[in-house]
């Protein structure tokens, strides 16, 4: 197939992949030449995790059109379940096997939570998902903060009180230690693994969007009543989108957890959820490449974030209000889109304009 025969979307996706691969190569070259600062090389895996988070949240928010305020909750589920697995397994399995299994477990666990939340909530119309995911994120965080799990020769011990309440024999070791989380995680994650997972996420999400399933999902976003009228099973496709989104957040959590020696629940709180949402809004609703760029840039420039740390809550509030308006008002949607078009590259803008005027003539 030659380039000209590819559709517009396929070409756009190609640019996205190329961009990610180029970024990876450049960073590897810089690292080889010892030109990466310490702080930046420490950020590489978190950047990959946040990119996956933003892309997956965009599937729920931009593609499905449902607001989720607890995406970090799914990340947390992925982080804890995968780290729990790898710590419990220890050296019993070869590292690559442990890694693949741990990440798969993190993904599946988060996906299961996605289904459990989605089944009751996605049947409803309105902003219920926002409220429930918000609660979910907080509940998961508080639950994990209170959990003690240990293992000894007799098997697993669980307590919600403290470590001594586990009542383990002398072979016992604690895996999850309440607010102190999981310590001694095998730091298996590397930048290359993160890069591979980013590409995997992009393949899943971009292929999904440009398929029968993706069109069904977007049709629900654009007009639920019309979607039903042409035979789309609305609940089913909402659930598919939300579950994939949650599972990918679990994957990001697994990746992130295995870059840290200690995994604690408070890392995945409300602020993290909102931060991811900011990435999605800044990158553009439904714009996957935008999410990649926004997540990478806003993570890599901590100075930028630090400088508006004082105003963070204010920014959050404004973003939230805008989000609500986005969903309600077509005027605001058009207004924001108008600004977006103007900010985009000049050439792109002119091409769009030319297309519009020619369509006007045809009509």
């Amino acid at each position, binding site marked *: 197939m030659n380039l000209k025969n590819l559709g517009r979307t396929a070409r756009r996706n190609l640019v996205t992949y190329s961009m990610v691969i180029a970024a990876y190569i450049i960073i590897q070259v810089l690292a080889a030449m010892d030109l990466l600062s310490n702080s930046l090389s420490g950020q590489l895996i978190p950047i990959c995790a946040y990119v996956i988070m933003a892309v997956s949240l965009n599937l729920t928010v931009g593609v499905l059109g449902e607001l989720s305020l607890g995406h970090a909750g799914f990340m947390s589920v992925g982080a804890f379940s995968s780290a729990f697995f790898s710590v419990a397994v220890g050296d019993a399995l070869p590292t690559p096997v442990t890694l693949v299994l741990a990440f798969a477990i993190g993904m599946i666990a988060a996906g299961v939570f996605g289904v459990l939340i989605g089944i009751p909530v996605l049947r409803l119309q309105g902003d219920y998902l926002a409220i429930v995911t918000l609660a979910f994120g907080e509940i998961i965080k508080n639950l994990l903060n209170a959990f003690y799990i240990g293992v000894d020769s007799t098997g697993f011990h669980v307590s919600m009180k403290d470590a001594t309440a586990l009542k383990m024999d002398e072979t016992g070791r604690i895996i999850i230690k309440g607010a102190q989380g999981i310590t001694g995680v095998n730091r298996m994650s590397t930048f290359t693994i993160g890069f591979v997972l980013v590409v995997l996420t992009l393949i899943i999400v971009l292929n999904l969007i440009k398929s*029968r399933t993706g*069109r069904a999902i977007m049709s629900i976003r*654009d007009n639920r009543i019309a979607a039903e*009228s042409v*035979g789309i099973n609305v609940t089913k496709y909402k659930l598919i989108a939300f579950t994939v989104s949650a599972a990918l957040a679990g994957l990001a959590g697994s990746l992130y957890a295995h870059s840290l020696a200690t995994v604690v629940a408070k890392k995945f709180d409300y602020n993290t959820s909102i931060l991811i949402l900011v990435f999605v809004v800044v990158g553009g609703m439904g714009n996957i490449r935008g999410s990649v760029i926004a997540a990478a840039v806003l993570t890599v420039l901590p100075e930028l974030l630090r400088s508006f740390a004082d105003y963070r809550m204010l920014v959050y509030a404004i973003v939230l209000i805008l989000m609500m308006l986005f969903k309600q008002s077509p005027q605001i949607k058009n207004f924001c889109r108008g600004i977006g078009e103007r900010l985009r590259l000049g050439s792109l803008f002119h091409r769009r304009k030319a297309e519009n005027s020619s*369509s006007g003539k045809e*009509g």
Partner: protein
Amino acid sequence: MALLEVSNLGIAFGGLQAVDKFDLTIEKGQLFGLIGPNGAGKTTIFNMLTGVYKPNEGDIILDGQNITGMQPQKISKAGIARTFQNIRLFNDMSVLDNVRVGLHNQVHYSTVAGVLRLPSFYEKENIMRGKAMALLKIFGLDGVAKQKASNLPYGMQRKLEIARALATNPKLLLLDEPAAGMNPNETAELAETVRFVRDKFGIAILLIEHDMSFVMELCEKIVVVDYGRIIAFGTAQEVRNNPKVIAAYLGGE
């Protein structure tokens, strides 16, 4: 057996009996008109036929299957498609994608096949594209297939809605004021298209329209409702001269 048999259909909103004791029989391939003053209950009837509203009473039988109170998505599969009085397109999607969504239940492959780009994806997507383009061509929309639906001029949006409805391979097509906002030329062209669609696809069409001449010229049978009840029924000629109809329209306007 008739294609659609509606008997004693009724629905109330609060205290308002929007539709009452509504009966209707449509034969295969028939062009049927549903007219009446504003607020008479025409759109409400469509909404009950397509499952948007659940009727309080009555039965809707499509091709021998009782579809009363079924979900819209199931009724679409059973064979009723519709357009909306206030156009409902998938605005942020392309014209082509709008029709491909309409083909959702006609061409199948799994989500996994789509994500993994298995051979069935390419095969079925090709079929889907061909079918969608053929439909767009009928409505003269093949040239704008790549454009965003919301960028189309009004008349084209109405046509696209019909194309999308036809993509679901219906037995019965419901058109809610398809000529609204069109000029006389466009209206005449639309009448041609409606007739063509009926002949080509062999489906029955029930349409709501305010433009009396449009309905009178196009439809073989017409039912007139006012205040949720049938006030007249028959051929265009019969309905036109019915004093109740004249009174309803003169009173209504």
